[in-house]
């Protein structure tokens, strides 16, 4: 399992770098929108939180930790895929980063767009279930479409890509948001750009780092 340790080390480095970049982007772009949306939330006084990190370094620190750790997890998926396929280098990494962006951001967001705090949505567990199903179906679908040679697997892959969106994401009967619509749309655009930059960077770094690694 020496190879496993090397994958973990490379992914840790890639994830921390990618997570740091994402945190900086979020701090200047989406965090102000989240904070603005929370003003509407607290003024409506229906959202009482338990412990939460204090605004400022504590809150930003947890976000940095979250981004670094998710970056590590995503980088593991990218590195393992490249390891299995004997690929290395930033160009392959960019391809896998694009796939990750599609699987973990674009496809789920088509049905469940990123939301500001205070947005009324369908029940959490049904949304989480649809999100997971969509990510899994998209990952398997992309594999079938692009990485197999049999026609029936490619057709099946394309079908899997479409399936979650034919079923449709769970939505509340009456949609309601506390923050103005313009704020929400701005948030969706910035989040989509930030996550694209994050995924492509994460993929490129992961691919580049794998060049430095000699597997058993």
């Amino acid at each position: 399992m020496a190879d496993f340790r090397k994958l973990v080390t490379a992914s840790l480095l890639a994830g921390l770098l990618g997570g740091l970049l994402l945190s900086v982007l979020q701090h200047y772009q989406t965090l102000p929108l989240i904070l603005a949306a929370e003003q509407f939330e607290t003024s409506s006084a229906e959202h009482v939180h338990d412990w939460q990190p204090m605004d400022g370094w504590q809150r930003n620190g947890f976000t940095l930790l979250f981004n670094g750790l998710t970056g590590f997890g995503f980088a593991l998926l990218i590195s393992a895929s490249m390891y299995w396929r004997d690929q290395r280098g930033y160009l392959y990494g960019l391809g896998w980063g694009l796939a990750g962006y599609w699987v973990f951001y674009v496809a789920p967001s088509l049905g469940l767009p990123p939301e500001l705090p205070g947005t009324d949505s369908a029940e959490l567990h049904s949304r989480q279930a649809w999100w997971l199903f969509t990510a899994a179906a998209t990952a398997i679908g992309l594999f079938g479409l692009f990485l197999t040679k049999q026609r029936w697997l490619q057709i099946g892959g394309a079908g899997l890509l479409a399936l979650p969106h034919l079923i449709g994401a769970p939505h509340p009967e009456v949609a309601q948001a506390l923050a103005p619509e313009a704020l929400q749309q701005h948030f969706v655009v910035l989040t989509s750009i930030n996550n694209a930059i994050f995924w492509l960077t994460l993929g490129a770094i992961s691919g580049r780092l794998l060049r430095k690694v000699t597997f058993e």
Partner: protein
Amino acid sequence: MKTISASTAIASSKFLPGFSAIVLGLTVVLGLGFLQDANNYLHNAAHDGRHSAAFPCH
């Protein structure tokens, strides 16, 4: 039966390290993105990250 093309075959010695990395990666990502604890500590700490990564939150 030759149903798996060369492009999808994985050398058996490479299966376990790659598989372990994928299991660890999914555990980390899904744990951070989806776990809800009774006191909301984890949720509140991960709050901004979850919103900004488009994980379903709240």
